[in-house]
């Protein structure tokens, strides 16, 4: 008996410990039997109304003011359901009693106290292909007695559009709640090349803004600058102060080709769509969205969902976005950069400049399949906002085998039999794609960890609207999910087991905004902890949360709470105890907070109007020749190099140009200006792409000559030397430099042979037309200004070299050469004092360092007397990226014996390497593989050995990259210890590095710039780089400087220090010149 007792105790304890964070509340306990039942018919189906499978919504809020959040569910076809919370996660269905009835096709639901009586009202959106009377949106006013009265028409909010969701907020800061209604078209337009449609207005498809005029709502959409065109496909809306000016702005997610909108509040009753001013790119088929401060910097970040599946099989089976030309066509017609994946836009601020960095891939949340609701919440109460995503689609109908083979066959069969094919009958046979919802834990370093299974959520479902609320009043966020053809999920959160602390905040507003909608609540605590939340009810997809914000606090036991009410008044409450609901009243608020003090900047950008120099990249497209390249090589440059070219004691600089444009020398006038110096010699060579350059006195006549590397990926890779006449006039000489035949990547001028004059290493980047075969790099030996090719074997085919630098690394008095590039390790060639100067026996490939390197700087960063290597890599904000033991690789061979190399990139997806190309892309390059992969299904599991025969694989060039992080190789007694930069610096390819002690504290600091626009149409441009100044706060410890004044928001390539200035070269954009202020 005793033994039995202990056994049971043990069992009980184990069960407690292994209980996941979330458990499903059984229907028997909750009594919530709601499900969104979808029954298709000949007239009611996805072909008749394309948003037929989008599912229903849910709103949580305390409808009867008993302190417990109640639930409202919308079903598309059935009546809405209202459940009153009776405590202990038990609910009572009061749908009939409440008189909340709705015919027609219901979509989103939100809650707000529209009539400002302190009781939450319910607003239900409707759409569908039915009658207008069944489509008008409904406002149910809470009669405070358990019943509601529909008063949409009385209030003027019975919009007849095809609505998805609505949000009540005070856009004009006049104290009452206005209304934005998110609508969608029910017609599909395919002629999206017609710009006229973007400016047209469609009263049923277009979004609408209603101003609250003393209790009656007036449609002010057109006057307020709201876009209402027939190609609006609104699926998500989020209100937040995106530009941090104290006025609420709006983000609108649009499905399909139409851009998302970022409406910036103009403070005069109007909005200005400003997407391009704040975001580099967006989701393509944008769905639900949400806002939260994910990195605890006191600024709201934005997430939009899309359709990218996480696993290889579904990525290969399902239709992705269209090809390169289609994408370019959209751009030409005024559409923005949109790619099919979830986007996480991180708010960054420098001075008064706000800009969003898209880091979804770095964060690890970019693919969650066909996704609907995004809900940020600190589910484990550890002080970081986690993420919940719902997904699933009733018919898996973007399957490409259906598109190309199965459907056409069915149609043909029907037609041959003389009948019209029953498309709906065919669609009905398609399988349902039930997938699991996703939970991600915020790791606190800009990345998330998928914990769906670990936290107990591992049920496949078609889940749409979702809301969080503290249903059992234990302080943590429970989750409520509206499912199609399956009972709703009530997930009970057991964060109390983790013993983390929390604080819930509720607001009592003055006047007509009784729940303080739009207020900003920030908690902060010792140790630099801070987190911002904005009070809004509409969240996620077609859903709403209660007007309460929950802060997870980890082990913190006291926090300061700062509230900024709409209009700007504020209150600061220090030392607030935790684990309770804090109710704050606006009547107690004081004046506005003092403006946040920014540290003084380090740099100031020169206005440059007009810009000093604009680099114009020519329109060449590498993918036309090599469709399977991981990215283009054509968009290199501009080269930059600095020297005093005219001997006046002032540093001047050279800027390279792309094909068709002349490179230029800029003379420093000593008064803060750079004057362009035309040069006939440079003008004569404008058919090359000047991608790298260096100054040196090559003929030892006392002035600085210029070496310019020709690159790109088109043709004409001959480098040029421009000889200085001592006054800054340059000319070429015949027969002084052997021809360079491969596209160049780098140049390093150093005394390789120790004879006192400068020799030249020219790194070559790519073999045009034969990626990734190593191009030939060159070592040119200087004999009185005449150069001969003395390239040792070990250097000539070092790899695809993009970067090089020289210094005496081992202290033997001889210069050593460091070289890195794409699919290359960082390689050190130790110099020898006799020809061939470099040899295999004196070469060191730094172990584990193969990467996609872009740039190198040698500098003794930690001041230990041993030169370190600072290296810029591709970064981790990409689909293609290596993990430990999981390299990105390329295999290349002539698969179809047509004389061209077929290069297939592979990378790991969920633990296994798969080829990067889609079946269409692969078959475009190697048509004969159609025989091996007759269907998408046949290709969906293919790996490299299925594409290459054993014989081909044996002969193939195989290269790997194990490391995409940028960072520093610290030198210590001949060994190199790589320490990656923090994640801020891994969000973009680092293309340029500049070191210096910018804060004059005796320690080297580092400036990083980069990005990559010339990517594949599928993966899209990487533009998260905004320019980073990393200050070395302690030896080898770097922190990003706040308000550095250095903005590198473009496709940055090169950085050069020019006297008291820093010059930044951007590909296909203007040069930026910064004054160094300290």
């Amino acid at each position, binding site marked *: 008996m005793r033994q039995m007792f202990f056994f049971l105790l043990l069992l009980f304890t184990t069960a407690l410990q292994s209980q996941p964070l979330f458990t499903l509340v059984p229907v028997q306990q909750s009594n919530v039997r709601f499900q969104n039942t979808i029954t298709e018919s000949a007239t009611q189906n*996805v*072909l008749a109304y*394309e*948003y037929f499978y989008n599912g229903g919504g849910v709103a949580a809020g305390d409808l009867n003011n008993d302190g417990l959040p109640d639930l409202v569910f919308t079903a598309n076809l059935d009546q809405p359901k209202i459940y009153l919370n009776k405590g202990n996660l038990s609910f009572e269905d009061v749908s009939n009693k409440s008189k909340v009835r709705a015919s027609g096709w219901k979509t989103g639901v939100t809650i707000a106290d529209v009539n400002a009586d302190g009781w939450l009202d319910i607003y239900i959106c409707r759409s569908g292909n039915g009658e207008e009377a069944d489509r008008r949106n409904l406002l149910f006013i809470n009669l405070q007695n358990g019943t509601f009265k529909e008063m949409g028409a009385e209030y003027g909010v019975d919009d007849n559009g095809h609505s998805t969701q609505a949000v009540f907020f005070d856009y004009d800061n006049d104290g009452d709640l206005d209304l934005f209604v998110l609508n969608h078209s029910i017609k*599909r337009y*395919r*002629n*999206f*090349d*017609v*710009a*006229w*449609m973007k400016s047209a207005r469609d009263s049923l498809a277009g979004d609408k803004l209603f101003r609250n005029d003393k209790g009656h709502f007036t449609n002010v959409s057109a006057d307020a600058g709201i876009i209402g065109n027939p190609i609006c496909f609104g699926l998500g809306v989020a209100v937040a102060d995106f530009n941090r000016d104290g006025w609420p702005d709006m983000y609108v997610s649009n499905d399909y080709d139409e851009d998302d909108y970022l409406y910036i509040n103009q403070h005069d009753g109007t909005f200005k769509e400003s997407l391009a001013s704040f975001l580099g790119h967006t989701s393509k*088929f944008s769905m639900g969205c949400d806002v939260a401060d994910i990195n605890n910097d006191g600024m709201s970040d934005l997430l939009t969902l899309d359709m990218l599946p996480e696993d290889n099989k579904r990525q290969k089976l399902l*239709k992705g976005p*269209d*090809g390169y*030309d*289609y994408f370019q*066509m959209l751009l030409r017609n005024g559409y923005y950069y949109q790619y099919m994946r979830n986007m996480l836009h991180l708010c960054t601020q420098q001075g008064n400049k706000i800009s969003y960095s898209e880091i979804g891939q770095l964060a690890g949340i970019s693919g969650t399949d066909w996704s609907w609701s995004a809900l940020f919440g600190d589910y484990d109460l550890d002080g970081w906002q986690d993420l919940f995503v719902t997904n699933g689609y009733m018919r898996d*109908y*973007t399957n490409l085998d*259906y*598109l*190309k*083979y199965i*459907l*056409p*066959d069915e*149609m*043909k069969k*029907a*037609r*041959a039999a003389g009948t*019209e094919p029953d*498309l709906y009958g065919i*669609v009905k046979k398609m399988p349902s794609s039930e997938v699991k919802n996703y939970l991600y834990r915020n790791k606190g370093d800009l990345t998330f960890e998928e914990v769906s299974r670990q936290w107990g959520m591992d049920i496949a479902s078609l889940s749409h609207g979702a809301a969080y609320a503290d249903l059992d009043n234990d302080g943590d966020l429970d989750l409520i999910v509206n499912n199609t053809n399956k009972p709703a999920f009530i997930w009970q959160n057991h964060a109390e087991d983790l013993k983390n602390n929390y604080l819930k905040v509720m607001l009592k507003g003055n006047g007509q905004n009784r729940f303080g909608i739009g207020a900003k609540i920030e908690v902060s605590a010792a140790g630099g902890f801070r987190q911002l939340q904005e009070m809004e009810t509409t969240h996620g997809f077609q859903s709403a949360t209660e007007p309460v914000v929950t802060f997870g606090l980890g082990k913190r036991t006291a926090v300061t709470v700062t509230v900024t009410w709409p209009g700007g008044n504020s209150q600061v409450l220090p030392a607030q105890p935790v684990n309770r609901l804090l109710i704050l009243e606006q009547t107690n608020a004081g004046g506005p907070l003092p403006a946040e003090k920014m540290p003084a900047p380090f740099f100031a950008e020169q206005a440059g109007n007009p810009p000093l120099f604009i680099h114009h990249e020519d*329109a060449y*497209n590498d*993918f*036309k*020749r090599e*469709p399977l390249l991981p990215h283009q090589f054509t968009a290199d440059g501009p080269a930059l190099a600095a020297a005093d070219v005219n001997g006046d004691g002032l540093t001047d600089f050279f800027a390279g140009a792309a094909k068709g444009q002349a490179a230029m020398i800029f003379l420093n006038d000593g008064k803060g200006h750079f004057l362009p110096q035309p040069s006939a010699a440079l003008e004569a060579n404008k058919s090359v792409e000047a991608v790298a350059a260096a100054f040196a006195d090559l003929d030892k006549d006392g002035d600085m000559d210029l070496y310019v590397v020709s690159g790109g990926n088109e043709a004409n890779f001959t480098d040029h030397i421009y000889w200085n006449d001592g006054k800054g006039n340059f000319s070429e000489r015949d027969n002084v430099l052997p021809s360079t035949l491969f596209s160049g990547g780098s140049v390093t001028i150093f005394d390789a042979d120790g004879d006192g004059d400068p020799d030249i290493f020219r790194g070559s980047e790519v073999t045009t037309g034969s990626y990734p075969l190593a191009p030939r790099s060159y070592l040119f030996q200087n004999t009185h200004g005449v150069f001969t090719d003395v390239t040792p074997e070990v250097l000539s085919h070092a790899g695809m070299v993009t970067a090089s630098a020289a210094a005496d690394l081992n202290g033997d008095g001889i210069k050593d050469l460091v070289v890195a590039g794409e699919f290359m390790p960082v390689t050190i060639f130790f110099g020898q004092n006799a020809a061939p100067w470099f040899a295999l026996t004196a070469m060191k490939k730094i172990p584990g360092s193969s990467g996609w390197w872009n740039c190198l700087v040698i500098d003794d960063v930690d001041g230990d007397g041993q030169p370190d290597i600072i290296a810029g890599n591709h970064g981790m904000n990409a689909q293609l990226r290596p993990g430990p033991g999981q390299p990105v690789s390329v295999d290349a061979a002539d698969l*179809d*014996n*047509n*004389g*061209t190399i077929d290069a297939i990139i592979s990378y790991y997806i969920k633990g296994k390497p798969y080829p990067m190309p889609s079946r269409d892309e692969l078959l*475009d390059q190697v*048509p*004969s593989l*159609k*025989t091996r992969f*007759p269907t998408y299904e046949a290709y969906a599991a293919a790996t490299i050995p299925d594409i290459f025969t054993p014989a081909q694989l044996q002969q193939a060039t195989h290269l790997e990259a194990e490391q995409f992080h940028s960072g520093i190789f610290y030198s210590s007694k001949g060994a190199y210890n790589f320490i990656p930069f923090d994640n801020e610096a891994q969000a973009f390819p680092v293309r340029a590095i500049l070191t210096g002690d910018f804060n004059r504290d005796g320690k080297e600091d580092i400036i990083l710039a980069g990005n990559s626009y010339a990517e594949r149409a599928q993966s899209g441009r990487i533009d998260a780089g905004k320019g980073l100044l990393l200050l070395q706060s302690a030896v080898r410890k770097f922190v990003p400087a706040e308000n550095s004044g250095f903005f590198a928001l473009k496709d940055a390539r090169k950085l050069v220090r020019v006297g008291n200035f820093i010059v930044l070269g951007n590909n296909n954009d203007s040069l930026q010149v910064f004054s160094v202020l300290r």
Partner: protein
Amino acid sequence: MLVVVCLTQQVRGQSADTRLAAQGLQLLTDVMINDITSPLVASRDYTYAMIAYYEGARNGDTHYRSYAGQLNGLSAGPQPVKGMAYDWLTAGTAAFYKTARAFVFSKDKFDQGWAAIAATSAKRKIPSAIRARSEAYGASVADWILAWSKEDNYSHIRTLPRFTPTPGPGTWQPTPPDYMEAIEPYWNQLRPMVLKSPGEVPIPLPAPFKSAQFLAECREVDSVRRHLTPDQEWAANFWDCNPFATRTVGHLMYSIKKVSPGGHWMGIAAIAVKMKNQPLVPALATYSLVSVALYDAFIACWDVKFKTNYIRPVTSIQQLMDPSWEAVLQTPPFPEYPSGHSVISMASAVVLTTIYGDHFAFTDNSEKPYGVKSRSYSSFSDAAREAAISRLYGGIHFREAIEYGTVMGKTIGDLVTERVSLHIN
């Protein structure tokens, strides 16, 4: 027992031989449709496969001579051993099977379809030694044709860059709904069959963009679109011949596959063969010669298409007149001038007319499997002229491209029939 006898008799009859050849042709067409083979690649597949069939079986009729010496680069092929007996249907079928199979992508689908043909063939009572000898001969003919095909520059073309649309007024731009890349910009680098060069048949340049004539032609396309009669719409759909048209309903996208323009004319050739109850070798002569005309017509047409790089009606009308304008048919992805269907239809019609005469009335049911009702014509050129003008009805070509396309096709057809003589009188 009776059934078996009947079958045997049928199989042994001349029309049964011809039927087997028609089945082979149909299988090739079906597999190419499944694989979404472009009209140009299809014309190449047809040509080599049908020449192989003809050459394999040709010795079965002493009135027919070889293509060797009559087509560019084709020297004499393998000869049957004198004094030995052959079954020429078996030889031709073997030559066709091996050649066609080498060209199609879905070899499994081709083999599946071939099983029925092979079964029919196996039922024929031929001594096994003769069967083996004939099959071996057919295979050697296939090897000869395949070796010849390898020198036509096709595999080199596969390695060239994809087409980049050039900006500028009046130039071709990708067209809705899918804005696909223009296909086969280097098709003029392919070795023609009888033409001395891809540009041997010159036609005038189209009207300058925005010229009075150009604007008039735009207005005509728009006006035809607005006043389209049911018969015109039927004709447009009948000659649509788009191997891959896409339809989109929300996120649901699907395709409608039809026989290519060349495949349609191979179908008409089969109708003529059937109506005339042609024996095997003359039937194969018809198929192969029509395919030769198609092949050269596409090369000559593509040469002009990518030299003129001319804008499509949908692009110009949207730019100049009505931004919401849509064509009846989906515009195929390549430049406008001249109309490919006009060139290849008239070239095929000339060849068929040379063989079967001018007043050859027929009902064309080639589009029935694709849901379009049959249409009747008084002659091959009557059908070709309708195929040509149907591109105006469909809103995908201007009149000039149709008229000069027809002229070009006529000349190419004439050159083919002049330069190739198969029948020994």
